[in-house]
């Protein structure tokens, strides 16, 4: 936990600096007749973030915070695997939405997660992976008229336009 505490504080300190620099693209001082410049609010708050990171780093050296004293690993092996697989499959699913749309990516994600990670039977996996996109489609695309992304235009034209013709 101890190295992670320092790494996080240092990364966040650099992020704070980036935010300060980015905020300073707009005036950060006082503009006569207008009040504080557009960048002032985020600039000084980012400075607050930087100062907080400074305190976290100082407390790390003094071993004053719980995380800076902890000798426990930040993540043990099984936790790291669970995190990597969950966050990784989620990332792949969102990436796939750009190509095959929500209704292609969601069942693939559910099959991977339930079958590979949960070790559920094909029947349970198939039921959840089949029902979830149908319910989502009926709720969002049909009831709410919120068109969820369909990926490449060919998928939308070939599969969803005929469906809209039937259901709407």
């Amino acid at each position, binding site marked *: *936990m101890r190295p*992670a*505490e320092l790494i*996080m504080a240092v990364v*966040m300190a650099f992020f704070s600096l980036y*935010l300060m620099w*980015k*905020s300073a*693209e*707009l005036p950060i001082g*006082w503009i006569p007749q*207008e*009040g*504080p410049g*557009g*960048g002032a*609010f*985020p600039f000084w*708050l*980012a400075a*607050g*973030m930087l*100062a*907080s990171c400074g305190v*976290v780093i100082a407390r790390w050296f003094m071993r004053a*915070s*719980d*995380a800076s004293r902890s000798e426990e690993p*930040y993540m043990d092996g*099984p936790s790291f695997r*669970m*995190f990597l697989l*969950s*966050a990784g499959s*989620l*990332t792949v*699913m*969102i990436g796939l*939405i*750009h190509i095959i749309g*929500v209704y292609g990516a*969601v069942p693939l*994600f*559910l099959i991977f*997660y*339930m079958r590979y*990670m*949960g*070790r559920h039977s094909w029947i*349970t996996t198939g039921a*959840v992976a089949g029902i*979830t996109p149908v319910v*989502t489609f009926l709720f*969002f695309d049909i*009831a*709410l008229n*919120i*068109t*969820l*992304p369909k990926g490449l235009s060919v998928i939308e034209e070939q599969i969803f336009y005929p469906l809209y013709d039937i259901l709407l």
Partner: protein
Amino acid sequence: MEILNLLLDGFAIAFEPLNLVVIVLGCAVGLFVGAMPGLGSVNGVAIMLPMTFLVPPTSAIIFLAALYYGAMYGGAISSIMLGIPGASTAVATVFDGRPLAMKGMADKALVAAATASFVGGTISVVLFTLFAPPLAEVALRFGSPEIFALMIMAFATFIGLGGDDIAKTIFSICIGLVMSAVGLDIISGQPRLIFLDLPGFFHGINFLVLAIGIYGIGEILWTLETTKGEVTMSKATVSFRRVIVALKDLRHNVKTMVMGSFLGYFVGILPAAGATPGSLMAYGMAKMIAKEPETYGKGNIDGVVAPEAANNAASTGAMLPMLTLGIPGSPTTAILLGGMVIWGLEPGPLLFVEHKDFVWGLIASLYAANVFALLINLAFIPLFLWVLKMPFTILAPIIFVLCVVGGYAPTQSLHDVWLMLIFGVVGYLMRKLDYPMAPAVLAIVLGPLAEPAMRQSLIISNGSFAIFFTRTIDGVPVSGMIMGIAIALFLLPVVKTLRRKSRPAS
């Protein structure tokens, strides 16, 4: 008398068929969300908010408020049956609820939790009905300095009373406020903080993206790590006769329920406090005044009753500052507040003037939600016990999918979905290092209100920060008084540290 008339009008709205349906649905979904380990009202409200676009704004907010209530009831179920708090608000319920379940008295604990929740909810809604209108009337006279001072106080309570690492709390508040500043500058209209020149940042960062990221994705990652996807459940025998007997036995616990309700309500009003400290304090207080404090932690029914009455009362208490002042009393009410803004219902005192129907409809629906949550809870205890057996490896991916489509729906932009994933993962990694996340969510909701209030005040005073201390309303320096409380709250941790240091020396 006027309040009574308004409340009756409110009941007419609450009992409209659509609103009744959403109350029942909200309670049921809330009970389910609350009962699932790791998921609480805040997760439920964040994930379900985009799903409410189907109904009118009043019904949507009634649904979410009912869900909020239901989750408070539901949290006890997994605390008692699994020994894992369904939500942080139900942590204190584990202390005695779990030992009762281990002794084979799970049904007694479940009935006690449901009844105490009902009592807490009812007392707090009555208090809310009495307190809200006068507070809104006072707040109507507030200008931008007072509003900004109130927001500073809301952030100060996180620092003074939050109990988390102060530097990390300040970091969390600041990053939430900076994220709220992304988009176009409200006064000059110039683009601001457009990272990597991505066009998706021009419309700003929707608070829902952060809320769903942290309370949806981040929370599930956290729960997956802590439970490893496994649950072990106690056995429970539930029958109508046993429920009636358990209800009769509760007459001995009325005093604790009432105490928990009042304490929870007033703690709930404080922005950083909310239901979790409310329930823990009620548990502590019940133990302190008990004749046999040594029985606590070993299966004392008062140890279930006190925190459950308190967490429901606190959830209503948290709505008081949200509706009257526009300052949320808990992370859940922060998300509700953000939802209201989306629907064009600006929370604050004007709401009581301009949207009386909405306000009183919501208050009346809280009374109704309380009754329905109790009935659904008692009637469906066996069903919830069955649902709790659902492996987390089925629930987790479904919630991930809900987060993705929920993050997409408000702006219909995949940019926001990516952002939500980043917030969820980074939020989870930071939470592991004790960075509190609730202040960031509160800050991103309050940021768009705090910045104009501050800038308007400074324009009035020509750049002098003294306006926040010197401006008066009818000769009373309201803003200065609020700032005084905020400064005291900021200094509270310093005082605590100094006292702690002086103790060993003395």
